[in-house]
């Protein structure tokens, strides 16, 4: 069992990062920390994709003109998907943080519980 997990260590880390990220989104009362949790969740997924592309003893997908027929390369496709996802992720983070600034401007707090109280008082 332990060896099975050790051979799949990046998948285990992927599971851990997903859980830590989701926990932060749910349990942190600070809105900025929630967004950071979302980012951790994201990088966990990226790690999963990059792992599926990985080949033990291979090389990165830069293929020389005269490549040997038997040479092993990491798959370029999951890596491209992750590249796109990283850029989309930062765009998402930017919009979320803009909304956070706007919320602070309107309510003067970033704490989830205080926000809920202020909203019910209105």
């Amino acid at each position, binding site marked *: 069992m332990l060896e099975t997990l050790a051979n799949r260590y990046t998948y285990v880390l992927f599971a851990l990062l997903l859980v830590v990220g989701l926990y932060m989104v749910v349990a942190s009362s600070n809105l900025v920390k929630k967004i950071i949790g979302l980012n951790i969740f994201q990088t966990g997924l990226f790690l999963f994709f990059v792992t599926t*592309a990985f080949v*033990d003893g291979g090389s990165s997908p830069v293929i020389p003109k005269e490549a040997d027929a038997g040479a092993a390369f990491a798959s370029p496709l999951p890596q491209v998907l992750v590249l796109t996802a990283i850029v989309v992720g930062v765009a998402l983070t*930017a919009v979320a943080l803009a909304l956070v600034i706007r919320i*602070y401007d309107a309510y003067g707090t970033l704490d989830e519980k205080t926000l809920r109280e202020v909203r019910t008082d209105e």
Partner: protein
Amino acid sequence: MTELFAAALFVFVLVTALATAALRDVLGVVVVFAAYSLGTALFYAFLLAPDVAMTEAAIGAGVTTLLLLLTLAKTVRPTPDQWLERPNLPALAVFGALFVVLVATVVEFPAVGEPGVMWDNPGVTQYYIENAYEDTGVENAVTAVLAGYRGFDTFGEAVVVFSAGIASLIVLRQVVFTRE
């Protein structure tokens, strides 16, 4: 040697992730998160994805940290009454259960780096690896797929980034322009 390096990376990424969840001071969390991004970038480089590693180092550790710090400067950094977050037990129980389910799934996956199991799909991966240079004239297959084979996807990504910029401007218009 590589096992040792992988283990060190694993521990570093995990400890920084847990620290972001546990620390209460938001500025401290942002700084630890930057270190975490750098750790994941190293992990990607270790897993033969140098392009992903560079993007993560520049965007994850660079741009995201900058955005988070700007947000803190524009809003507030609450003075923490204690050093660590108080654990939320119901959430811990639910996500602990989720972790058990995920690990039960992960055990069925092929081992990390086992050649030709998950993405051994001759239709796509092998095609890219064999024909990228002939088709596009670029040795880096990732660049070839990003800008050549899947150029329209990259265009869609640019549209998303553009819309995000517009959306941020609309949201922040009142805050930035009326006050100054």
